[in-house]
């Protein structure tokens, strides 16, 4: 701690590495005793220059690059990018592909919200809830792995459609997981709205009024917990959301408790939508033809990520490489709001308020481990993996 003025104000630096905040960002919090009087944020510890890198890669390779912006909501980034590129190219993915995009997006929302529930409970010192919610989240991770082959970067999208179809066995596995999770979610909603000790950390804490949320540009569940009815899935339906509409989930209290309630209620909405979608999947192809070169033009692609509105601006110069891709993730605007929100709170409430917006941090990835039928395992190199993927894709050996 360092003294900043002649009075009793101190500045507490938190991060980029800190046990109370498992994400690489740096906050300088000025306190008067225990009360926060100012806060600033410094980002960039996980900045990888992806927007610049995109200008040196072709449209197809960029799909996999943008999927790696986020390790939690990877699918929604790829979806936003793919929808934008398809619009520029004048290609529309078949209805079945659009429905599968929505299916994976909602599965991803379930896994993201359950992950957040655990993190937020942990910040409140409620580690039992953290462990239960993460145990349950494994059911969704298994479903996603069964559906796409991957737990984190699913690569469900290709330009012009999707990679994976849904068969009856996968459908049954998804429905079974949802039945289990629905019961558990009722229990979690009960816990976060009735547990007296937990409510001391959430009720009336970090309150953001509707006006504040609108002025500060909050998005997603953070905004909806303050009564701002913004949801891109309804405001500007993309993929198959016009055909499979969701119900808007809005709470008005604006405090941390409301942010828990909004996200858990959104879980029920996702369970409902997935069940309906699996019963009403359109038949047909799952991908269309996509040109290598994309005609000149600009477009904007907006989608609802688990954390809120995700914005992509794409500009093509008519070649096979984009001229510019701009990404605005939901966390940046929610983070701005939170920095203004913590003023006046106890220092000890800061980690909970930060966790309340569900800030997005990088996930670690997995190595490729193949298990052969005789029980031996071996690792693949990058080159072997690339060759294998091309063989599968084109049915040819290189």
């Amino acid at each position: 701690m360092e003294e900043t003025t002649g009075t009793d104000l101190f500045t507490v630096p938190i991060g980029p590495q800190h046990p109370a905040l498992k994400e690489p960002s740096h906050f300088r919090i000025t306190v008067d005793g225990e009360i926060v009087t100012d806060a600033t944020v410094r980002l960039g510890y996980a900045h990888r220059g992806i927007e610049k890198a995109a200008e040196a890669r072709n449209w197809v390779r960029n799909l996999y690059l943008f999927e790696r912006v986020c390790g939690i909501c990877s699918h929604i980034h790829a979806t936003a990018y793919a929808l934008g590129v398809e619009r520029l190219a004048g290609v529309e993915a078949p209805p079945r592909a659009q429905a599968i995009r929505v299916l994976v997006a909602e599965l991803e929302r379930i896994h993201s919200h359950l992950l957040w529930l655990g993190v937020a409970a942990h910040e409140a010192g409620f580690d039992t809830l953290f462990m239960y919610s993460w145990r349950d989240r494994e059911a969704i991770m298994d479903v996603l792995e069964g559906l796409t082959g991957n737990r984190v970067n699913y690569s469900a999208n290709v330009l012009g459609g999707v990679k994976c179809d849904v068969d009856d066995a996968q459908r049954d596995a998804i429905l079974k997981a949802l039945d289990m999770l629905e019961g558990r979610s009722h229990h979690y909603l009960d816990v976060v709205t009735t547990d007296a000790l937990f409510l001391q950390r959430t009720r009336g804490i970090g309150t953001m009024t509707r006006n504040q949320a609108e002025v500060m540009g909050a998005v997603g569940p953070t905004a909806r917990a303050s009564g701002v009815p913004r949801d891109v899935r309804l405001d500007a339906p993309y993929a198959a959301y016009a055909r499979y509409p969701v119900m808007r989930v809005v709470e008005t209290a604006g405090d941390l408790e409301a942010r828990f309630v909004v996200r858990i209620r959104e879980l029920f909405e996702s369970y409902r939508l997935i069940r309906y979608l699996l019963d009403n999947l359109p038949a047909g192809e799952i991908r269309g033809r996509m040109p290598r070169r994309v005609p000149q033009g600009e477009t904007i692609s907006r989608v609802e990520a688990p954390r809120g509105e995700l914005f992509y601006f794409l500009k093509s110069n008519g070649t096979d490489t984009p001229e510019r891709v701009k990404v605005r993730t939901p966390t940046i605007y929610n983070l701005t709001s939170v920095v203004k929100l913590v003023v006046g709170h106890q220092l000890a409430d800061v980690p909970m308020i930060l966790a309340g917006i569900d800030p997005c941090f990088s996930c670690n990835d997995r190595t490729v481990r193949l298990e052969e039928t005789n029980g031996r395992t071996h690792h693949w190199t990058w080159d072997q993996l690339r060759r294998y993927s091309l063989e599968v894709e084109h049915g040819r050996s290189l």
Partner: protein
Amino acid sequence: MMPTEKAIEIGRELAERWTFHLETRQPEPNRLDVLLTSPDDLVPFAVALRVQRIGYLTAVTGLDPGPESGMLELLYHFCQGAAVITLRLQVPRQGAVIPTLSMIIPSAESSEREIAEMFGVTFDGLRAAGHLYLPDEWPDATYPLRKDWSPPVPAGATTAED
């Protein structure tokens, strides 16, 4: 909530009745581009959108048309339902100073800090200075999202085309 077409219509009307008529384009049915002729129009037009209750600032995009153009372009995207109203402002490549929107739209601060360090545009009145994303030791007057900047490739590294 205001329908998309209505938001586009109000945006167009605002631009056409502006002190000096502002040109508009509609590149897609849900989008309206307003071409600002001067940085002086930026804050009043953003206030006008707010007074008309159209949209919230969703993002600010920086564009570099290339060093030979001598220009940079800033795009302020305001969204309402499915409508996106974009204020497009061309600024000189060297020494551009434009007013900040953060006084009326607090969330603009992070976007403007990003544009400042990535494109080298100065925002007059921006409270927070210094890098937001780039490292502290990043060289001065080096703006990585400009087209004439390329990342240094470490010896032995493989490039995207390998």
